């Protein structure tokens, strides 16, 4: 899949550089602003939906609803980033839900059965999540197996291993300290939202200002070129999967602290939104690009739409159908942007 995706993305980069030196294009300025920037395209829908909701439904801006909304965004943003970090190298992670569930169950077990202090339990389950991702990346690179098949197979392996080792009972007695953090708030912001935003800022700095981040994007844009440039492509791919697992684990840890239960159902509904949020935020499916705050805003848009449907009283099933259509719409815009970039109009 990487090999398929790489050549067009490489073309994107070259034509963008050519455009920078060429004559200014005559395309509509508005279209260019909307499609050219990662963030503007998503900021406007978020603002429009937010303002419309707040003015139509008084309950929307209530502190209770905002708290629930921000908590949802906190978890889903990390799930989206977990997918985005492998999207950046042009691969997918179908095992994300399994990684989330396994990590949540391990955290629950460490707290309920292991009686560990919560900071240690959180640290260990975070490392465990990173290990799940590392194993995935290692199988893909060391054994040179098809990335799609590996994540599909590992999803089943991780679920199976989780049930075999930890059983299918939820861990409900995880003490009060972690939940009191997860359910607490600082000012108007839930604690888990603040934690999530801090992680997002770290990810943004990593992607934007570190060598590792640039290597990641270079590998995604064109793996062959990256290899010829003597980048450690294998280590980068493994690292991207390890980060993906670690972020899925963090999302799961936040959810466990909020729900006060380690459950195998954690992550069940992550897969679609994990793709929808980054793509809405401007992360390219073909690799070579990651938009951290775009992903957060994409998450916010999804959360508000989901919240709106609950307020209006539409069943969750129709949200699922709508989510599919949103993804199709987002990839259409994604494609439009690639086309415009490639033809030098952006």
């Amino acid at each position, binding site marked *: 899949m990487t090999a398929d995706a790489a050549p067009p993305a490489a073309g994107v980069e070259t034509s963008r550089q050519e455009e920078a030196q060429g004559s200014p294009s005559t395309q509509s300025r508005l279209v260019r602003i909307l499609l050219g920037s990662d963030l503007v395209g998503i900021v406007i829908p978020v603002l429009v939906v937010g303002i419309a909701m707040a003015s139509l439904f008084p309950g929307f801006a209530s502190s209770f609803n905002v708290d629930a909304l921000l908590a949802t965004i906190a978890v889903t943003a990390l799930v989206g980033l977990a997918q985005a970090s492998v999207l950046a190298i042009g691969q997918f992670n179908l095992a994300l839900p399994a990684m989330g569930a396994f990590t949540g169950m391990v955290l629950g077990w460490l707290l309920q059965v292991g009686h560990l202090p919560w900071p240690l339990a959180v640290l260990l389950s975070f490392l465990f999540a990173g290990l799940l991702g590392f194993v995935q990346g290692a199988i893909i690179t060391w054994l040179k197996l098809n990335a*799609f*098949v590996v994540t599909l197979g590992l999803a089943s392996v991780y*679920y199976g291993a989780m049930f075999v080792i930890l059983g299918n009972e939820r861990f409900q007695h995880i003490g009060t300290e972690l939940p009191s953090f997860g359910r607490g708030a600082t000012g108007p912001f839930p604690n888990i939202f603040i934690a999530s935003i801090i992680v997002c800022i770290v990810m943004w700095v990593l992607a934007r200002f570190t060598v590792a981040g640039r290597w990641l994007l270079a590998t995604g844009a064109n793996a062959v070129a990256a290899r010829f440039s003597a980048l450690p492509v294998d280590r980068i791919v493994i690292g991207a999967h390890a980060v993906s697992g670690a972020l899925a684990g963090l999302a799961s840890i936040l959810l466990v602290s909020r729900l006060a239960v380690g459950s195998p159902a954690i992550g069940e509904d992550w897969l679609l939104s994990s793709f929808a949020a980054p793509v809405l935020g401007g992360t390219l499916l073909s690799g070579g690009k990651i938009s951290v705050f775009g992903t957060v805003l994409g998450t916010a848009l999804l959360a508000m739409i989901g919240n709106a449907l609950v307020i209006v009283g539409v069943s969750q099933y129709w949200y699922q159908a709508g*989510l599919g259509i949103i993804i199709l719409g987002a*990839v*259409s815009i994604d494609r439009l942007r690639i086309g415009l970039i490639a033809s030098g109009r952006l």
Partner: protein
Amino acid sequence: MSPREQSGTDTRAKPGASAIRALTTAGPAAVTVAVVILVLALVLTTRTFATADNLKVVALGSAVTIVVGLAQMIVISAGGMNLAVGATGGLVSVVCGSLMNTYGVPPALAVIAGLAAGAGTGALIGVVIVRGFQPFIVTLAAASVLTGIGLGVTESIPYYHLPDSFQAFGSATVAGVPLIFLVALLLAVILAAMFRYTSFGRQILAFGANPRAAALSGVPLGSLQIAIYALSGFIAAAASVLLVARLGNADPAVGKDWLLVSFAAPIIGGTRLTGGYASVLGTVLGALLLGILVNGLVQWNVNVFFVQLISGLIILGAGGFERVREVVASAGERNERRSA
């Protein structure tokens, strides 16, 4: 079966190497060996496996898996993938169930409508993919839409009142063999004939092997891709009809657990994920291997959760096997070039 052995100077001189070559290059050979070994092990270690009742259970379970695997195999052999196979099955279950249960439509008509719905949704997916979108994301999104519609319409409640004649079809046997198993085999034979004798079948493989070359050879790519996904949807619908007939109720959750097996059966059977090669026999045997294995684990009193773990390991193993096959094939090409 180390790939290094194969990339030696002249493998064709060694008799052992040619056996390895035969196992790794001919599609269904390896899975045939695996099925035989598994069956022998079960016959020797358990007394309950080789009984008529148990074999009937295996056949009933495998029938649906065979058809699900074929629905995915068609798309894989064309170099694509269809994550919406299960969701199509779920929607078809709702279509058939509501027509028979709520509107009193005769079973035959309801089945035809269900098959048409499956082919239609497949064609729609194909129309989107033809416009240049990645099959992965399109079929993932389509799966969400189809599942959402099926669950939204039914509020997740199955249709329980299906006509007796339809339920009888699901439990009927011919000479002791379940009818739905025979239907699955018939479908496989038709597909095998399609790949072997029709230009459509050859076009699918040509497109999967090299889309650009296929286009230059005059293969109509647009209509071909739409037809491929429509056919995949049709076969997924057939799988759903068989399962609904077997269960005796039409559950919108039909197809929820098809994703893994839909890829596992063809890959185990030697269909290449990169496209250009399909093995109907291999897919049937791959599905049988999975069906027999699940049954065998029960016979051996293994914890049911191990089934999920082992299924995952099997698909990883099949992916690894495909990799070995690639290495062997490229080593073979190198050798031929050297000797030529």
